């Protein structure tokens, strides 16, 4: 059984490393999109799947990371990697401040509160022209070069080069989340999700843990956003709009909220479905709506959840 898991991860790693070999800009670009959404959804799911809090304002942190990274690249001499990290740290700090307020509420009130704060970020991005460029957004963000010890400045102009950077950062981000959710801290978060009252009776200061999860989740979401600024060379306020917050929600539900790899698998499916539907019709939102309906009504565990509950036991029986 363990072997099966390793085969999966190894195959995924090899495939991911090989994508630039296709030489197709389209595939590389799509792969970057998938990776960014995967990381965004992983960050989101730290809060939703692991802590039990549905945020409808995570686009705010994604955008905060993107704007901050963009501004650092445009206005400071910081290198590419430092700017991306800086963007993520800014989003994390913002998350700590906003989270301080949001974790005072739970359930639907939490969802509404995150929605309000997320839209505040949007409003600020839209209206604070002198810093954010208003509705045009930041334009002309340089991608810069990557400083590597021993190698010096590595040019990132080629899309494939930037792809490997995104892949490395995403892998690192996912690695961090993996360690965190399997740590005592992660166990406590799951306990809070399962039964808040019981967790308090296990000696857990519930609110403080929720805040920590919120900040970390914002940091990861910001990291995902920060990678987009140098990719697109521009950031517009729409990345902060609440409808953007729906993307990680959909990806997570598609893949499975109570599984570790669910959001990543979901991010891949998200773009595959979108590509597939777009070839048939321009109305891909309709397709997503129907998929979401089916997921909520019948498959709340998502694809990975379904695999773990039904397919894996079947495979296990077959091969043992």
């Amino acid at each position, binding site marked *: 059984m363990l072997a099966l898991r390793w085969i999966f991860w190894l195959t995924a790693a090899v495939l991911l490393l090989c994508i630039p070999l296709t030489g197709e800009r389209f595939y590389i670009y799509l792969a970057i999109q998938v990776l960014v959404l995967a990381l965004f959804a992983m960050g989101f799911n730290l809060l*939703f799947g692991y802590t039990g809090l*549905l945020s*409808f304002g995570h686009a705010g942190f994604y955008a905060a990371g993107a704007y901050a990274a963009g501004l650092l690249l445009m206005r400071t001499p910081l290198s590419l990697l430092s700017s991306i990290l800086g963007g993520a740290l800014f989003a994390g700090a913002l998350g700590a401040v906003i989270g301080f*307020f949001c974790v*005072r*509420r739970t*359930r*639907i*009130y939490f*969802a*509404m*509160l995150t*929605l*309000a*704060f997320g*839209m*505040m970020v*949007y*409003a*600020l991005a*839209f*209206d*604070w022209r002198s810093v954010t460029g208003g509705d045009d957004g930041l334009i002309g963000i340089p991608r810069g070069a990557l400083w590597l010890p021993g190698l010096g400045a590595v040019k990132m102009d080629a899309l494939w080069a930037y792809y490997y950077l995104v892949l490395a950062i995403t892998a690192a981000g996912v690695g961090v989340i993996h360690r965190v959710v399997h740590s005592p801290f992660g166990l406590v978060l799951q306990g809070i999700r399962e039964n808040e009252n019981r967790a308090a009776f296990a000696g857990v200061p519930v609110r403080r843990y929720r805040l920590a999860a919120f900040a970390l989740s914002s940091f990861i979401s910001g990291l995902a956003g920060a990678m987009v600024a140098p990719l697109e060379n521009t950031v517009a306020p729409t990345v902060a*709009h*609440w*409808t953007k917050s*729906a993307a990680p*929600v959909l990806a997570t*539900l598609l893949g499975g909220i109570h599984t570790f790899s669910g959001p990543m698998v979901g991010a891949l499916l998200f773009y595959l479905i979108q590509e597939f539907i777009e070839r048939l019709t321009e*109305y*891909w*939102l*309709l397709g*997503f*709506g*129907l998929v*979401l*309906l089916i997921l*909520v*009504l019948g498959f*709340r565990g998502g694809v990975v959840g379904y695999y773990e509950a039904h397919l894996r036991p079947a495979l296990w029986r077959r091969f043992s």
Partner: protein
Amino acid sequence: MLEQLFYQGMIGLSLAMFLWLVAAGLTLIFGVLGVLNFAHGSLYMLGAYLSYSAVRILGLDFWVGLAVGPLLVALAGGLMERFFIRRVYHIDEAYQLLLTFAFILIFADLVKWVWGPIYQSAPVPGALGGAIPIFGRPFPVYNLFVIALGPLVGLGLWFLLEKSWWGRTIRAAAADREMAAAIGVDVPRLFTAVFMFGSWLGGVGGALGIPIRTVSPGMAEDYIIQAFAVAVIGGLGNLKGAFFGSILIGLVNAYGHVYAPVFELAFMYILMAAILLVRPQGLFGTS
């Protein structure tokens, strides 16, 4: 200066009354069924498009369109409740929110598919055309009509809920579903009816807007957030709160537009967050 203030106030009030019509249905449905319907803005949009079609495409009279569109919206709402939302009453609220969110996506594309992505509008009905001067500036008669209609709808709702047996049944079932069932109320059917009625209200809001507000596929996304802000500020499930919350948000938007354009958008969300933090029961709710 004072004239400007008053004129913007009137603009704000007419904004507010549209908001109130959306928020009223949202609030009623949440108050009785306990479901926060993310797709309520889409029902508002659907009301606008259906009435627009009745007027522009079928060539019906504006008032006939106003009657027909919302009725079809009510039907759509009824189907939504009967076949989908009913199945998630017993599960986590997060999934209720997500289920209704699915309908935003579906309605958004359906509308684009049927009516196309471009902006639409319909002519102001003859009797309400033109403008009358207010402090020397022309103010559309239709907006005055809307300003007058909002409180009337509020009064009607109050009467329906407080004074009719249907309203009493709703209040009883909202407070205690089990005991309502135990005296013979068919609660599932009642809930479908309430959902339809709430949807109808949203549809009326949309239909009323077609002469003066652009009808576009993006309107659902904007309206639902404003309606959420209104509902939260008034206290989720509180109709009286939603009425005054609408006025507050309408005025904030109208004055913000003129006096503090930098914060115009943000102010509504700041208000919403502040209420959720300080008075989650809303301005008019009792804890």
